[in-house]
């Protein structure tokens, strides 16, 4: 039997992926140049402005930083805010055709 939603009002539990994999909304994809990223270059927790500004909360502030492309909508704010210009927004070739 299909698990059935018997709720009479709309609701959801807060969970990763509750609204589906929103990464498929993306046109431009952030590509990180770790040779420029301050955290990677200094090899210690530093800068992390991309993590701070990401409206989706999908940047992991590690060494190196990681961006979860399952949920990145491609807004480009991380690239805009990066003081080292380490993030480039790349539009896949097929999108240009």
């Amino acid at each position: 039997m299909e698990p059935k939603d018997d709720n009479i009002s709309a609701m959801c539990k807060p969970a990763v992926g509750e609204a589906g994999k929103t990464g498929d909304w993306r046109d431009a994809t952030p590509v990180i140049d770790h040779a420029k990223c301050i955290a990677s270059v200094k090899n210690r927790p530093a800068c992390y402005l991309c993590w701070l500004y990401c409206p989706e909360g999908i940047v992991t502030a590690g060494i190196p930083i990681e961006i979860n492309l399952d949920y990145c909508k491609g807004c480009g704010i991380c690239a805009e805010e990066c003081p080292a210009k380490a993030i480039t927004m790349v539009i896949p070739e097929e999108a240009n055709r």
Partner: protein
Amino acid sequence: MSDVQIMTGNTAAATGAKLCKVQVVSAYPITPSTSVTETIANWVEKGELKAEYVRVESEHSVMTVCISASTVGARVFTSTSSHGLLYMHEQLHWAAGSRLPIVLCCINRGVGAPWSIFNDQQDSIAQRDTGWIQIYCRDNQEILDSVIQAYRIAEQVYCPVMVCYDGFVLSHTMMPVDIPDAEQVCRFLPPYKPHTILSPEDPRNINPVIFPWQRRDAEGILRDGYMDMRWKLQHALEGSREVIVNTCREYAELFGRDHGGMLWKYRTDNAEVLITAMGSIATEATMAADILREKGIRAGVIGVRVYRPFPREEIREAFRTIPAIVVFEKNISYGYEGALSADIKASLYGTGIDAPVHNYIAGLGGRDVKARELVEAIHASLAAIASGSRERQTWLNCVTES
């Protein structure tokens, strides 16, 4: 034990809410509803009613307070009129969509422009499609009883209920009202059990963005799409008829007063014309029916008590063999006709009931409607129907020449 007091409709409404032990009351004053919540505010201040009284800056906020409080499991009450109700409009949809058993007294008043503080039913009729159950009361006793019944209905079907009654005609007119025993009311009305519990241990988003299609959530459960939720609300309102009728009957068994369920009938036996109306104008119509019967015209009255859900089957049954129907109502669906008349005609379509329906718009903005005027209108309509008139839309006691 019977406790009869002389009171206004507004005191009756407040007394009903008090007997239901409402826990949160929020209101913004507007004539003619003001004294309902003013009375409750006094009780709260004196400690006679243990409730939170939340003062806010607008009726829109009133309904948001009601929605929040009802969501976390409180029994909530408010009242308003006219522009106050219109200002709530968006949140009325939100309350119904959230399936919250909020009870609101709408003390019916005309809508501007231009300003009027006086009675008609344009305000609540304009909220017809918000998903609220609407009850129209004919006297102060019915107001008190209907507030109690409204909580019982709302908390069973999880739909909000609007108890509507005419401003000044009932709200500020004193009548004897039998006040039910508080303990008996408690037995009639079990505690409110919310359909969703908001708790820090089990956090959830209420009313998130919902998509047109059904969709699996993160746990793999197939969740409704928007349209499925709308169907559930429509299904609940359609299904509430039985609950409304049963509630009314059980109330009658316990307290000895039967207000008729979906609609009530007065002297309908062997009738040649049925006067149909909602609220105090229907009470006036019973006097008109008496006068007409004295004059040898077999007139009766159908009082529509519940307007949403519409008493489709009851209307068909009531009008099955009637030769003429005359509808008086205190609202106008501009560019068409009275809302009640239109709904009655629609419910008769395809049933083989082919009675002429005459529609009178009456008493807008507090213009007096007297039984004598209703009698004259019935005479005029019966004469017109006898010479072949099927439909008539006209305005009672109003200059209708441009």
